């Protein structure tokens, strides 16, 4: 039984169904994604890998509901996002998804704590609850001592950890990270990978990230490879996921490839 076939039988957090995304280019269209299918179960730590221009970021944008597919459907936690109004789509992003960006994208005039607080502010959490959650999130990324520093006083690694804290503070179902280690040196990149993996294991958060960073791929449970907008492989590479999915045949380090 293939991995995806097994996943189909378990509750899915993300479902990508024959999704195509075309962008206008001069008088033609270029396909960034071409009939892509993907299923992601809760608690997965999944990498979308591929060379530049393969469609990694486009796929993440579509899963993150910040872009719309030209055709096909995307399900988040069982909800068909193509049927959502703009307002409900915003609410879905706000409540269910956390984002980590390659360039950190922190609000420069806010302190680390205020940046982490922002998603809670948007969701209307009380001041007391915001304070508690921000403290816990910063603690979980090891930045409690830097809570009152503005982004320009933080290192790249610290900024990205603040971004991770911001992405998880409202306890989303899914965290999307677009090339999160691309702007980090090896030491900071390794720390970030360990941090995300730890959060995945400890809190059961689902991480989907795009990367072509081999360091990150080495720590990943499942790798989906894209080339020219198409999935060319979908493989479990660690035992972590095995214990969470019915894929009994997969062993640690064994590469399984499933056609999508």
């Amino acid at each position: 039984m293939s991995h995806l076939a097994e996943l189909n039988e378990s509750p899915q957090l993300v479902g990508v169904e024959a999704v195509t995304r075309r962008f206008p280019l001069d008088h033609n269209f270029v396909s960034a994604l071409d009939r892509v299918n993907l299923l992601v179960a809760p608690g997965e730590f999944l990498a979308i890998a591929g060379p530049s221009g393969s469609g990694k970021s486009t796929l993440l944008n579509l899963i993150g509901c910040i872009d719309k597919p030209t055709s096909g459907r995307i399900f988040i936690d069982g909800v068909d996002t193509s049927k959502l109004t703009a307002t409900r789509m915003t609410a879905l992003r706000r409540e269910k998804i956390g984002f980590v960006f390659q360039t950190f994208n922190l609000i420069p005039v806010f302190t680390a704590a205020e940046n982490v607080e922002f998603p809670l502010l948007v969701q209307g959490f009380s001041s007391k609850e915001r304070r508690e959650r921000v403290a816990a999130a910063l603690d979980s990324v090891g930045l409690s001592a830097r809570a009152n520093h503005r982004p320009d006083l933080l290192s790249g690694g610290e900024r990205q950890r603040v971004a991770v804290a911001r992405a998880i503070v409202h306890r989303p179902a899914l965290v999307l990270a677009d090339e999160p280690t691309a702007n980090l040196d090896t030491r900071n990149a390794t720390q970030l990978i360990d941090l995300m993996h730890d959060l995945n294991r400890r809190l059961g958060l689902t991480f989907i990230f795009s990367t072509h960073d081999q360091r990150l791929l080495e720590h990943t449970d499942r790798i989906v490879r894209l080339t020219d907008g198409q999935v060319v492989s979908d493989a479990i590479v660690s035992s972590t996921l095995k214990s969470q999915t019915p894929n009994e045949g997969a062993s640690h380090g064994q590469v399984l490839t499933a056609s999508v």
Partner: protein
Amino acid sequence: MGKFLLLAFRNVFRNRRRTIMTMIMVGGGVAGLLLVGGFFARMFWGLRESTINDGLGHIQIFTAEHFNREEKHVLDTGIENWRQVAGTVSTGGHVRGVAPRIEFNGMLSNGIKSGVFMGSAVDPVAEESLGFTPRLAAGRDLETKPSGEVEALIGAGVAHSMNVKPGDGLTILAVTSDGALNGIDVQIVGVVNTGFKEMDDRYLRITLPSAQRLLQSDRVTNLVVGLDKTESTDDVAASLAPRLQGLPQQLVLKKWIDLAAYYKQVRSLFSTIFVFLGVIVFFMVLMSSVNTLLMTMFERTREIGTMLAMGTPRAWIMALFVFEAVLLGALGAIVGVVGGNFLGLLINHAGIHLPPPPGTNVPMSFRVLYVPSLMIGSSILVIVSLALAAILPAIRASRLQIAEALAHV
């Protein structure tokens, strides 16, 4: 909400140089309006007080007939029992005094040359008690002489055309209340410079008894009431009106503003100029701020994309930009109010004089009044202007495609 406002506040100071430049521009507009408006207000105040103190008074009392029909003969619409009326009015609150007047006209001659005059007859004591002193260019004011010698003040233009000076004599001719022609010799005791050339070319003033003798009438044209302050005019007029009912002649009260046609014309003209100036400042701030705020929006495209990705409602993004603009406008207004008042203080201390306005020959002092309503109005004007300027950038920001915004470099 507090954090959201804090974000707006910090964003305003994100690019300090640009914020300072915008504040200076907005503040300059406000300061300009304050200085011009303050100068106009001082000018209106000065014109009002000089109009009143040059003899118009705060309230004038006429017979109703004076406005209902043309006089067949001089003073036939005048006030008959004016001493009783003056006595009644004098006892009112805020009233400093009452001065009777006769307005008449006729011809004057130096024996060689003749000309027309517009004459007024006054009680010099009553006039002086109200502070209505003519602007003498030479000689002295009128005095009531029991000897019966008729004294006269003439305008500078009359003196020039008749080639006379204080101490010289003139003959004046006028039609009496019976329609007959009467004449008296007057001695010129002073030459008056009213500030208006047309007036100076026709001006003649004699005492009330002299005029009544010339015109063969005991009536007066009107009674001029002087108050302790101009602001009391409405209240006093309201309290006097019922007290003048039931007299043999129907009397009407005219407030100074009803009679000061020149003041109203000047005020209307300069108010229009000020409104026009306000419109220019409004659009100047609007157009230059649109550009600045659009630049801010473009610079923060990725940040806005991030906020939208995190589920920030688009209305919040709009509100953020509008609030930032309002804040910027308020700060600019504060700069303008402080700067404008400081400049006004410097100007007032400098003692600058402007050339005489058209129609007058008296230099005008350049002084600026501090008008709170002007400060509030100018501030609201620039804040509204900036809020409107923010609408386009705010709409653009709120409509950004998130994926494109996040890829913005």
